[in-house]
């Protein structure tokens, strides 16, 4: 038996928004694989919950006429991993969420819950950041659209007001078109583990595959929140695809991150992982994009 106070069950998004406006302090319960466990730990004892888990209108993936991919927030990791639209256009996201937990966790865990938790280790976060995902956030007062890059305010803190609900995650065609990505999760076990470090890279190559037109790189657990490697991205733009590119990345990524010591790994080991994973993920992304690269 869970030790919460009231459970408000929303049957429609409209109802969920009303409930969130009426009970602003109530926690929004999506799949519950974080909140229910924290409840058991006594962290949220006596809290009120608004369950949105059964809202199928917030579940699924769509491709709009202009090529925008819309991922509804309650889509489970299993459904993200198997979705034909995502497998075709953003397979890196499918590969990333396949590395979360185990089948039971991927069946209950939702992509929206993963990013609204605001933890730096979220496996979907790095790839969504690397693809410049946009977030649609709604309240009874209206709708706003926010770049996911601006969503994380600090560890476990996101730009979601008390009456707001994340209702869609979108990726524009410009962001995924002719773009190839790779995600590496470094963890001690292959399953049921939290990333010691995560790195997601995607590249858009010139027509003859000799130059980087655009490189985007994001890290998890390399800073208090999932971060983009802005300095690295600027300096690699237009760079020839060669061994020098990898050396440049190895140097520049250190300016983009602020990892810390934790029981999982020391700061020094994380810095080493950041450099090594950035290079490996870049190399894989270039190969997927049809380019070739030697060390």
């Amino acid at each position, binding site marked *: *038996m*869970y*030790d*919460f106070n*009231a*459970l408000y*069950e929303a049957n429609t998004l409209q109802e969920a928004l009303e409930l969130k406006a009426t009970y602003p302090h109530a926690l929004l*319960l999506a799949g*519950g*694989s974080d909140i*229910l*466990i924290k409840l*058991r730990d006594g962290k949220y004892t006596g809290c009120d919950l608004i*369950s949105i*888990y*059964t809202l199928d209108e917030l579940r699924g993936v769509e491709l709009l006429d202009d090529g925008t991919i819309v991922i509804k927030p309650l889509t489970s990791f*299993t459904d993200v991993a198997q979705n034909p639209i995502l497998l075709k256009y953003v397979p890196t996201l499918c590969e990333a969420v396949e590395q979360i*937990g*185990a*089948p*039971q*966790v991927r*069946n*209950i865990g939702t992509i929206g819950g993963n990013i609204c938790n605001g933890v730096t280790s979220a496996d979907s976060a790095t790839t969504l950041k690397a693809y410049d995902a946009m977030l649609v956030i709604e309240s009874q007062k209206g709708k706003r659209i926010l770049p996911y890059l601006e969503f994380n305010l600090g560890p476990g803190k996101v730009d979601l007001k008390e009456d707001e609900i994340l209702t869609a995650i979108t990726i524009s065609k410009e962001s995924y078109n002719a773009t190839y990505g790779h995600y590496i999760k470094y963890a001690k076990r*292959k*399953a*049921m583990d939290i990333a010691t470090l995560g790195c997601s890279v995607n590249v858009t190559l010139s027509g003859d595959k000799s130059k980087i037109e655009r490189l985007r790189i994001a890290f998890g657990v390399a800073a208090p929140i999932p971060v983009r490697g802005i300095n690295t991205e600027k300096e690699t733009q237009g760079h020839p695809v060669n061994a020098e590119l990898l050396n440049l990345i190895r140097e520049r990524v250190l300016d983009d991150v602020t990892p810390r010591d934790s029981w999982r790994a020391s700061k020094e080991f994380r810095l080493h992982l950041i450099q090594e994973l950035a290079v490996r993920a870049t190399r894989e992304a270039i190969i997927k994009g049809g380019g070739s690269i030697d060390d």
Partner: protein
Amino acid sequence: MTKKSIKCRVNGVNREYFVDVRSSLMDLLRGPAGLDSIKHGCDVGECGACTVLINGRPFNSYIYLAVWAEGKEIVTLEGVTNPDGSLSDIQQAFVDEGAVQCGICTPGFIMASIPIINQETPSTREEIRRQISGNLCRCTGYQKIVDAIEKTQKKRIAEKKKG
């Protein structure tokens, strides 16, 4: 304390339960439903001992509110056993391969293995290991569990081919 009526299908039978909204699905199944194959393990979704199938997919029944079961199709180990009470192929394979020692993880492992043994194409041992990665066993060392699942999957695929 708020109570609510929940209608769902459990092991092929339509049921209605009147539950405290704070119950987990495991509380409902082990309590009013009387299905004690489900084991209360780690409480945090790591050991898989509470695994049941919901609409055909494995879930940890402890990390699932009972009220979410409304309208769902739930299968526990009791629903895997043959109607006459005899062991089904996967249960017999666990016995034959020595995949059961203390037994507390076994119901969860068998539930996690159902989607694997129903696949149309054979899995590699690595794929089987990935699909049972949400279940922990401290006795067997997993080899014999993988053997039992692999054997049953092969047998079922062969039977399907025969028609």
